[in-house]
């Protein structure tokens, strides 16, 4: 009806006859400027100059593009002016003016809208600047600086007249380095090896050795899995298993083990399918895009499509750029210099990705090199006619329903068998490729538009693939290959390029956080205006530059950090420093942080002697108390426990199920699996004490440890207690402790040792490494 009015009345104003001052400005002044003019700018929009109108409001879309849509009543949700549409003549006049090019002829140019303060600040924001050339500062105590990290840290302390904490005791360093790099405690032999000659050089050597262990890769892969919202089920009603998703976990473990350069690591995850040297690994790496929750029964499929893309974009931008660009989906970011146009340009980059599915079932796909994949495709094409023939032969009998196989005549059966044999021959000649869970570009990406208010039906202007404008002077090239749009590969190249100010800083900061508990930037996935400023900006830049220069090697970065005196400082609390700098922003000591639940669980298993070191493969299901299953809609089916042996594997191999997290993991602050997690939280609540003190897992392992103590120290009570201390805490008991333990044992000789083991697994000293 309204559309019709507009159409009918447009001719009432002759083409070209609309003059801004005579016809349009009075309408705008009367009906628009009160809310979008010099005095008020509702939703950030100002219409009294062309520049301001073009800039648009919070939607990030030029108002010139939107005015007609809103005043004509075409938009379902927004009708302007609110309450009452303009008279048809006015609408027609504005339409004509817009069609003529929307000239604000002779308008007061001075009224151009001031630029949004976010963008002004954004252009100067530290994280968006190229890395500074940082030179390690001169310090008064150069001897303390084992490497440049120490110089940066010491300089800040000296400026305050402070001194760094002394080096930690050898035993503390020993436990610290084992937990940091492997998430497991040192065995007694390993304790002896280091503690017999605990020199700095011996520790340097140990660092190198530990990084070569599988346990290192398992520990550090888990850190990365937090960032990529890793879980092996989709959540929602059916919480379906993601087929072969565990191969992504194994890919990450391999990547850490072989020290895959981080720029290559990120490229494989973002665009492993677009590389020239595609392999099973690079395809599995793009599982990164597919690890998020997936509702197989979405309320609105169109919205769901963009929810899926949002999951990918939000994860990618937080993981690699430390930006919360997901907030620019419905309008320009409220706090950051990121626009809806930036967001939808990212959508354009990832638009080619879509989940392969058959109804509500997700499909996995073959993995291999291009040649292998092509061979399988060709084979399948050759096999297809035989399959089709089988289908045709079977069709009339299938129609008979259940038991149809019985009714197939012998000669037809024979024909089918022959055809099957042919197919089998093909499969023998070209065996099926293994399968993986990932996304790749299957068809050219559709056009992308800004979606007004984030609504799939409300198309704004078209956008091209582009990176957030605030980060670049010039957009990087987005170049297609003969096979794919090349958008993600171009994006990955830009991420890892010298022009990108963020990627290296963000990963270096994460690694720092995983070693120290806190990053140099304490908001590891938010480097924007709302994020925290780095405590040591020069150090961060120096580390990032060095990291890039050394080939994006994480192991070299670990070595650099762990060989510093900064990392070797004691955790001892200095009340005077604590009072002045309670957050330890100056790094006057090594801070305490409770071990992650995985490290706690794995260490209990290691100490009890039950840890199964088997690596890789499908995930396992340790037993869950039946009470914990009561919250599930399928308590009988949801969790089939693995064998005791499998259940004793490292926690990274425990099946991460979105609707049922293992209760011990849940209680002890496992990260949220719905979204990228920047950092493990540490809460301290009584249910954790219940889990660790009363729960089946710890009590069972305590029995095993007691058994081990009897076996390995059969001679005396003292020997058993000493062994327990060495296994759990990597030290001998003091005489007071020995006394306390012995009098405890005296009261309950039969179960005493088991109780001691239980108590020791609960000690603060066990879960807070010195």
């Amino acid at each position, binding site marked *: 009806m309204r559309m019709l009015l507009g159409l009918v009345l447009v001719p009432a104003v002759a083409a070209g006859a609309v003059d801004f001052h005579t016809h349009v400005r009075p309408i705008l002044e009367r009906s628009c400027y009160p809310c979008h003019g010099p005095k008020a700018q509702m939703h950030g929009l100002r219409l009294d100059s062309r520049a301001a109108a073009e800039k648009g409001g919070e939607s990030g879309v030029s108002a010139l593009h939107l005015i007609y849509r809103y005043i004509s009543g075409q938009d379902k949700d927004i009708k302007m002016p609110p309450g009452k549409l303009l008279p048809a003549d006015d609408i027609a006049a504005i339409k004509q003016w817009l069609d003529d090019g929307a000239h604000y002829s002779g308008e007061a140019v001075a009224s151009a809208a001031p630029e949004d303060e976010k963008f002004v600040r954004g252009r100067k924001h530290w994280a968006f600047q190229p890395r500074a050339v940082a030179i390690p500062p001169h310090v008064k105590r150069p001897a303390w600086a084992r490497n440049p990290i120490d110089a940066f840290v010491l300089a800040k302390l000296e400026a305050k007249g402070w001194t760094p904490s002394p080096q930690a005791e050898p035993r503390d360093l020993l436990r610290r380095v084992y937990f940091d790099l492997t998430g497991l405690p040192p065995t007694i032999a390993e304790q002896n090896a280091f503690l017999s000659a605990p020199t700095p050089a011996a520790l340097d050597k140990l660092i190198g050795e530990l990084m070569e262990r599988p346990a290192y890769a398992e520990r550090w892969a888990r850190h990365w899995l937090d960032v990529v919202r890793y879980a092996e089920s989709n*959540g*929602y009603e059916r*919480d379906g298993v993601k087929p072969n998703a565990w191969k992504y976990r194994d890919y990450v473990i391999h990547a850490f083990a072989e020290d895959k350069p981080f720029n290559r690591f990120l490229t494989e995850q973002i665009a492993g399918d677009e590389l020239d040297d595609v392999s099973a690994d690079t395809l599995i790496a793009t599982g990164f895009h597919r690890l998020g929750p997936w*509702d197989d*029964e*979405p*309320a609105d499929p169109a919205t769901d499509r963009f*929810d899926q893309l949002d999951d990918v974009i939000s994860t990618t931008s937080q993981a690699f750029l430390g930006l*919360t660009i*997901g*907030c620019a989906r*419905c309008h320009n970011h409220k*706090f*950051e210099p990121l626009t809806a146009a930036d967001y939808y340009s990212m959508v354009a980059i990832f638009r080619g990705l879509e989940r392969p599915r058959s109804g509500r079932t997700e499909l996995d796909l073959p993995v291999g090199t291009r040649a292998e994949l092509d061979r399988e495709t060709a084979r399948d094409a050759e096999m297809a006619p035989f399959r089709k023939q089988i289908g045709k032969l079977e069709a009339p009998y299938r129609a008979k329903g259940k038991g149809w196989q019985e009714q197939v005549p012998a000669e037809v059966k024979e024909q089918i068998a022959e055809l099957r044999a042919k197919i089998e021959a093909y499969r023998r000649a070209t065996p099926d490729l293994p399968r993986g869970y990932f996304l790749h570009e299957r068809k050219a990406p559709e056009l992308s538009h800004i979606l007004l208010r984030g609504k799939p039906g409300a198309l704004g202007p078209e956008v091209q693939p582009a990176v957030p404008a605030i980060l670049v002077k010039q957009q990087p090239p987005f170049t297609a290959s003969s096979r794919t749009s090349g958008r993600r590969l171009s994006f990955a190249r830009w991420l890892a390029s010298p022009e990108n100010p963020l990627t290296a800083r963000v990963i270096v900061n994460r690694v720092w956080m995983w070693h120290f508990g806190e990053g140099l930037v*304490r908001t*590891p*996935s938010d480097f*924007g205006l*709302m*994020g925290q400023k780095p405590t040591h900006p020069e150090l961060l830049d120096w580390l990032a530059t060095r990291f890039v220069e050394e080939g994006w090697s994480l192991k070299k970065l670990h070595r650099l950090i762990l060989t510093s005196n900064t990392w070797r400082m004691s955790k*001892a*609390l200095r009340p005077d420093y604590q009072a002045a700098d309670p957050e330890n922003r100056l790094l006057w000591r090594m801070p*305490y942080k*409770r071990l992650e639940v995985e490290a706690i669980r794995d260490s209990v298993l290691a100490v009890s002697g039950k840890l199964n070191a088997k690596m890789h493969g499908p995930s396992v299901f340790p037993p869950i*108390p039946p*009470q914990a299953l*009561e*919250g*599930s*809609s399928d*308590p009988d089916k949801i969790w089939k426990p693995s064998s005791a042996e499998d259940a004793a594997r490292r926690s990274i191999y425990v099946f991460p199920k979105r*609707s*049922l997290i293992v*209760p011990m993991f849940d*209680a002890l*602050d496992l990260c*949220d699996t*719905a*979204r990228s*997690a920047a950092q493990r939280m*540490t*809460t301290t*609540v*009584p*249910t954790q*004490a*219940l*889990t660790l*003190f*009363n*729960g089946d897992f710890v*009590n069972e392992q305590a029995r095993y440890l007691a058994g081990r103590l009897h076996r390995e120290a059969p001679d005396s009570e003292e020997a058993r207690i000493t062994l327990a201390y060495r296994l759990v805490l990597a030290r001998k008991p003091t005489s007071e402790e020995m006394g306390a333990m012995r009098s405890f044992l005296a009261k309950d000789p039969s*179960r005493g040792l088991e*109780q001691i083991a239980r*108590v020791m697994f609960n*000690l*603060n*000293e066990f*879960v*807070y490494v010195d």
Partner: protein
Amino acid sequence: MSINRRNFFFRAAGGFASLPLLDLLLRGQAVKQPHFAAKAKRVVFFFMNGAPSHIDTFDPKPALTRFDGTPYKGSLTVGSNARPVGYLMRSPFEFQKHGQSGLEISSLFPHTAKFADDLCVIRSMYTDTAAHASGCLQMNTGAVLLGKPAMGAWLSYGLGTENENLPSFVVMTDPRGGPISGASNWTSGFMPAAYQGTLFRATGAPLLDLSTPEGLDTTAQRRSLDLLQSLNQSHLKSHNNEDDLSARIHSYELAYRMQTAAASTVDLSKESEATLDLYGIHNQRTADFGRKCLITRRLLENGVRFVQLYSGGGHIEDTWDGHNDCITNHKTHAGETDQPIAALMADLKRTGLWKDTLLIWGGEFGRTPTSEGVGKPGRDHNWYGFSMWLAGGGVKGGQVIGATDEIGFEAVEDRCHVSDLHATILHLMGLDHTKLTYFYSGLNQRLTGVRGNVVKKVLA
């Protein structure tokens, strides 16, 4: 963005923490002031899992009698998942006016009906999804997408806890199973785990790992705990009384006290026979939910902030999801819950908790006015319109708000989105839904997202 512990302090306390509060703050749960005077201090949410039919419970549709057996001719998509669509179907349940207000309630709820003048029925609810998983998530966490904190977590975050010996957000599920999406319905999402809902059992040990391990008596348990604490104390002394270490020591003491406190809430041996009868605990049909309702009263008395009780668990007919036979289904589930719910209302009135306890009844959406399949007694999912009721602290009872259309398909008058309900609940609890925010991932997140208006008519 993540919350480091210092940030967490800051948010928890709205400023720097004083030392005596430290242990509570580490848990992030010190009692906090609401934004304005609260009408209610605690919430009981009777979650009718699976989606009850409003047309058969609180939204009588005489017109359906007229149209009974005729096809639906409107423009809404009927039901979910391409299930068979039958004809319009009248409610087989008789509606009567109750109380002075004359509130109309179906014969499914004879006990609840006695409290008609206390109920505020919103007949114009609507939501964004017709699927259980996302519908439950929306009702519980405000979003159809996974990973947002549940309403109980928001309240724990906003108001803290009154009793550190018990969890502040308690969930009791149906013996047939939990809701679809399980723990995602009571998660703390991106907030610290301290705010998450805790599963509570009505029999045996109410909390996971609450019991002393098998073979140990209380003395042995205490002896082991004493050993642990003495070792931890000397460790603490040699570590300059680090806050984290001392908080963890305290948490073990709390856990020990929780063993007694939580266990005593499920020990009904001191309740009178009359009380047990009132809740229907001696009647097999009502025993389970009755027990839970009685335990709920005891939890509320002990300072628990938010109790969520699920009626129905698992799938389809084990829940209120009456696809096959809505009539039998609703008789079963209403029959199990009606008397216990009414008993709790009576008991709350008796104990005086009524005036500041908010009660909420409802499911994740409603059901269609059409049958599922011709001549079949089932009803399919309906997200365009459904009913919920509120009662208790701050709620104006004996009234109906909003209306669905003639056949009960779509909310048409005073439409109330789930986010409006959430805004209203927070308002009754003294919280402004636009100000109760948690900064995460670049946004000041809210329970209500960018939506939500307080439904003023609800307020007494």
